[in-house]
């Protein structure tokens, strides 16, 4: 990881934790940028349907349509126009933030390449949908933008040499122009919705909508903005006069100053280079990256329970007809092209229990680099090497941090690809081996590198999801910390757990309500 990337990732973590302080982790808007962008798109589409019903697609009527809305005495027109415009602006801003955040987190690599690649056309579609909407108002901003865009397009060797000629004088334009632009303005969002479906196709349990609290507050904010800072048309489009200084919508019309500054050809080159760079990012490999083998199914130990299918965050596991003579009707099958090698499926497998007899235990689904037998052996070895009193075992997520620094004479650290790779039975097993307490440490809450890990861990420990932690497990001796890269947080959690187990006397009490998953 380069210094710049490390700095930017730290900035992202800082932003995430700052928002976590103001919002709850699960309602942190910084974690729902894509869903918020989608919400804005839906708002724009819905407000656009109403606006279309009120729009006059003629040269003489287009400008008046905008004026009618902004001058509506009931202020409903102002609200409608504001929601449509500010929703579109917010959509672009949120989309860009979503792109930057996912890029910083390296979410263009591995199985996420598909979502990354299919997200790039969305930017272009959104931009086209937005800029054509600004033309429909046919004010001074519109004539400037449509001419500048035509001039920019003319720089391409497409034979559209005289596109800008259509806007030279008022006489050269007819009503068909507005019908055509309306067609594009409506068609692009439809394409956008279809492309978004493809964008999330390989993500299971996708969060399309933001949490309700965020939805309500975001819509309220946009409505308030629409009423307090109304969207206003400039003067009517005038082909005979150019404004020296012009108010433009920088979310979509940024391209015009860019073309003026660079030249049309250079702006195209820049756009092409940026698009290509984004498209090629999935091919980027860092030296630190090590290839991870996909999960592997062992049919002899797979009973076809389909828990791995339910828990896989990328839909890489499916149930298929059995290939052996087992009495179970189905068995799991892993699509290695979709597998992120997170190991969450192992954590979901009922056969991945260390309590099974035999040295070479094999789970129904295994991570080749960390089989369950190896994990058990490592646990036994590290527990055996501990010398201090009140031994603590830390199961740390590799994606969050290097938790090995927590290891000492009384603390053993085992590293997993994801916290949810750990079957709950391992917690009991560690305590059976002599651990006074067990800590699970992972990515920040709602920020799991593999999307769903923290959720599955919580639900399994609280007995809400299979495989459940047994009801008789000593929950007082279990701590979960979503510390991310914050080692102070993780270290404090170890201290807290050790102090708690020190306080515990006599037989372990069962207090489910005291389980700490924060």
């Amino acid at each position, binding site marked *: 990881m380069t210094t710049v990337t490390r700095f930017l990732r730290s900035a992202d973590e800082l932003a995430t934790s700052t928002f976590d302080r103001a919002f709850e982790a699960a309602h942190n808007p910084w974690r729902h940028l894509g869903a918020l962008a989608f919400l804005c798109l839906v708002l724009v589409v819905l407000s656009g349907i109403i606006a279309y019903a009120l729009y006059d697609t003629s040269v003489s009527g287009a400008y008046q349509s905008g004026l009618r809305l902004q001058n509506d005495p009931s202020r409903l027109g102002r609200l409608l126009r504001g929601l449509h415009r500010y929703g579109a*602006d917010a959509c672009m801003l949120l989309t860009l933030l979503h792109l930057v955040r996912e890029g910083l987190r390296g979410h263009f690599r591995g199985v996420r390449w598909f979502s990354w690649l299919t997200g790039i056309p969305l930017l272009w579609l959104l931009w086209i949908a937005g800029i054509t909407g600004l033309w429909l108002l046919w004010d001074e901003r519109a004539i400037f933008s449509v001419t500048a865009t035509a001039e920019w397009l003319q720089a391409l060797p497409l034979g559209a040499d005289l596109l800008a000629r259509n806007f030279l004088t008022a006489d050269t334009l007819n009503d068909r122009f507005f019908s055509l632009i309306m067609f594009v303005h409506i068609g692009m969002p439809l394409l956008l919705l279809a492309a978004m479906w493809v964008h999330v196709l390989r993500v299971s349990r996708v969060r399309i909508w933001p949490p309700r609290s965020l939805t309500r507050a975001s819509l309220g904010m946009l409505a308030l903005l629409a009423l307090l800072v109304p969207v206003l048309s400039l003067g009517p489009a005038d082909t005979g006069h150019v404004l020296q200084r012009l108010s433009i919508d920088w979310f979509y019309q940024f391209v015009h100053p860019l073309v003026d500054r660079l030249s049309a050809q250079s702006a195209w080159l820049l756009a092409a280079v940026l698009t290509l760079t984004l498209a090629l990012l999935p091919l980027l490999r860092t030296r630190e990256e090590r290839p991870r083998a996909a999960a592997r199914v062992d049919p002899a130990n797979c009973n076809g329970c389909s828990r791995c299918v339910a828990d896989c965050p990328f839909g890489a596991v499916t149930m298929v007809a059995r290939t052996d003579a087992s009495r179970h009707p189905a068995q799991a099958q892993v699509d290695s092209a979709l597998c992120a090698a997170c190991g969450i499926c192992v954590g979901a497998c009922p056969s991945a229990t260390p309590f099974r007899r035999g040295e070479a235990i094999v789970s129904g689904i295994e991570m080749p680099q960390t089989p369950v037998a190896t994990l058990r052996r490592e646990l036994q070895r590290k527990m055996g090497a501990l010398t201090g009193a009140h031994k603590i075992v830390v199961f740390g997520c590799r994606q969050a941090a290097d938790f090995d620094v927590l290891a000492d004479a009384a603390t053993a650290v085992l590293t997993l690809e994801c916290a949810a790779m750990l079957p709950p039975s391992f917690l009991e097993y560690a305590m059976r081996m002599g651990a006074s307490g067990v800590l699970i440490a992972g990515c920040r809450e709602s920020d799991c590198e593999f999307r769903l890990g923290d959720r599955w861990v919580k639900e399994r420990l609280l007995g809400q999801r299979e495989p459940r932690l047994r009801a008789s497990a000593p929950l007082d001796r279990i701590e979960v910390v979503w510390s991310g890269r914050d080692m102070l947080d993780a270290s404090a959690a170890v201290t807290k757990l050790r102090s708690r187990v020190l306080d515990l006397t006599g037989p372990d009490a069962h207090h489910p309500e005291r389980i700490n998953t924060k």
Partner: protein
Amino acid sequence: MSSPLPAPLRYLLQALAYAAFAAVVAYFSSSPLYRQLGDHEAVLKLSFSHSGQLKFACRERSAQELAKVEPNMRNKMDCPRERAAVLVELDMDGKPLYRVSTAPLGLRKDGAATVYRRLAIPAGAHQFNARLADGPDGVINYSRSISLDLAPGQVLIIDFLTGSGGFVFTHS
């Protein structure tokens, strides 16, 4: 581990976050103003689509030439489709402002030559002279002059329409 903030403070921070986002959206949706033209500048747009003259004259094919082609292809006259490039020169106040020679469009170079150029010029009184050559010899065969007083921001359009006798100057 940071302790949770009291609810009123959290709500205040949330409100501030929404307000900051709204402020960014509202501001950049119309600001800052973009300066597309200097305070004392006008705009000149030179734009036309004009087919130059045929580059080569028709000639009669010889009997030997006709014998080489299929009977249905035996056209007596050979008229090459290629057209001449169109040369445009534009002077302002006696000084050259713009000059371009445009090749005809099309794979066989038999289409129209097109020109579109937007220029920022100082506002005020000017004399313009536009000249065009569309023959294969490159000799100027169209010329027109005009004196105008352009206000700041005013747009002057120079078109070329053969039916109107050549250059057409349009301004509001």
